[in-house]
């Protein structure tokens, strides 16, 4: 294949990565923005979403689309439920102390990972894509499902943006993010907002996982890489900024795709990780964020 088509393929692959990454990073960013805590177990919610997607898709026989749709509805709900329980039992009792929360979510990470290993096993298992259309480009055929992932991610991002900026729930969330105490004075149930946001963040990670499972398989160790990548995206995009998160996800996803195709995936990760550490050191508000109040 010539250089041009090769680059196009790398960019397309990068866009698919970006789409998944953007959803996952959005969840992380919401949790950090509103609750001011870092959820280290976010990657495990992603993994749990993928594993549950495999489980739900095996429940249904017939056309693969039924299994996929069932997974797309149920898996995020179950994951959000797990997150809600963890939030009520652990995070709330820690009073959302930033450092204690990091330690507790590391604990949660290990628990979820071990349970997945014990119950689901060490194998990687695929979920069939809901449809298999190949779009013929002049140089190569490309999976229609992958383009669907990009479209679905964009739709979900738009929906999240709509909820955040145009509805009462979004207003309450933004008020809590802006000033927790004042929000409480205005009778906003901050406590319940936190629980909801934590569950929503986990749910978004699970949706991203269900979308990605037909492309890459479900495996109990699949959570760490996306977690680090979403940290990168969230930092570069500026914490709590939706626009920044999307832009950063595209930037990181596409450059990751291109470097991985032309050089090596390890090198791509090394460069991205190092660059982001430098961004955080020299421009803590992110490339697209504004300085903290």
């Amino acid at each position, binding site marked *: 294949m010539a250089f041009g088509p090769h680059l196009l393929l790398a960019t397309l692959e990068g866009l698919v990565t970006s789409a998944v990454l953007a959803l996952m990073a959005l969840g992380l960013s919401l949790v950090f923005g509103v609750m001011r805590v870092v959820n280290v177990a976010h990657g495990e919610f992603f993994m749990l979403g993928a594993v549950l997607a495999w489980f739900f898709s095996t429940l249904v026989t017939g056309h693969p689309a039924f299994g996929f749709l069932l997974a797309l509805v149920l898996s995020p709900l179950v994951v959000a439920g797990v997150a809600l329980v963890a939030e009520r039992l652990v995070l709330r009792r820690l009073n959302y102390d930033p450092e204690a929360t*990091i330690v507790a979510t590391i604990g949660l990470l290990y628990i979820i990972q071990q349970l997945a290993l014990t119950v689901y096993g060490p194998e990687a298992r695929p979920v069939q894509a809901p449809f298999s259309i190949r779009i013929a480009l002049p140089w190569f055929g490309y999976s229609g499902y992958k383009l669907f992932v990009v479209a679905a991610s964009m739709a979900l991002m738009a929906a999240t943006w709509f909820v955040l900026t145009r509805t009462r729930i979004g207003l309450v969330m933004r008020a809590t993010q802006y000033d927790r105490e004042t929000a409480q004075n205005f009778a906003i149930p901050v406590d319940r907002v936190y629980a909801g946001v934590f569950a929503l963040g986990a749910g978004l990670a699970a949706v991203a996982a269900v979308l990605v499972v037909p492309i890459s398989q479900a495996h109990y160790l699949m959570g760490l890489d996306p977690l680090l990548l979403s940290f990168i995206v969230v930092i570069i995009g500026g914490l709590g900024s939706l626009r920044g998160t999307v832009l950063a996800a595209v930037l990181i996803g596409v450059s990751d795709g291109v470097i991985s195709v032309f050089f090596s995936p390890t090198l791509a990760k090394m460069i991205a990780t190092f660059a982001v550490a430098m961004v955080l050191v020299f421009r803590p508000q992110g490339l697209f964020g504004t300085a903290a109040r």
Partner: protein
Amino acid sequence: MRADTTARVVALHLAVVAVLAALFFVLPDYHRGVMARVLVLAVFAMGYNLTFGYAGLLSLGHAMFFAAGLYGAGLTAYHLGWSVLPAFGFGIACGGALALVVALLALRTTGVAFMIVTMMFSQVFYLTTLYYTTYTRGEEGLVLGPELRTIGLGGWTLELWEPATRYFIAVALFSVVFLATMALARAPFGRGLVAIRENEERMRMLGYDVHRAKLSAMVLSGLSCAVAGAAYALLFGYVGSSFASIQYSILPLLWVLLGGAATTLGPLLGTVFMFYAVDLTSGYTSAWLLVVGVALILLVLFFPKGVMGTVRRKWLPWLP
């Protein structure tokens, strides 16, 4: 009163060292091996404790300092055929230099950002060890043969792989770092770190050079972790990427939290307890990650001061 306390503290610490040395004659073979490993890892934990416990800097990247010592000693011994002492010294120097560079960059941030930056740097280090897999053999790792782990001085040789030698070298290294931590914790420097942890703004206002104190703490901590890493490579003869992975940044956090942050004895207790807890449970189930996870959550929920922290608060306020 002050002199009295000093005598008590020094006596307690020397007693701990004496008990550890005496344990060799009591323990069966298997546990001698385990304890040698635990003592080396306790040095790692004590290094971590200096920043996390005393200075209050939550880092999730200390695996890179351990691994810098491990690779600094292991690679020079394996590829360049350096003998034990130069390799050991080089490993420590690597850890110290890396800690200085990382600290200069990472200390520009605070709190959660500091944690993420240290984690990212450590991840870059980990990926680097995988990228240069020709030299490091990645996860599979390098095995240092016995001939690389023998110190020859004139006609007299010291075989580091021999169990008794290994045990006493581990005790010696542990004692040096242990007593140094004790001295440090009681010196103005250590008290300054605790004061920074409690109220950084006030210390700055009092004219204290906060940045320099944190920088020194990071470098000393990195040196201590590198001592543990270099000793691990040379005593146990294995050098692998897994020691640079994020798991080895989390384990010292767990050990220190369990034993008690900002206590001199805590890291040792935490390491011994966790090592044996994992060892015992792995006899029944392979679910040792579950043990680690549950331990972390229970500790942070119900027992945030750890064992020695609780002991100090309730009974022995003079503990350093």
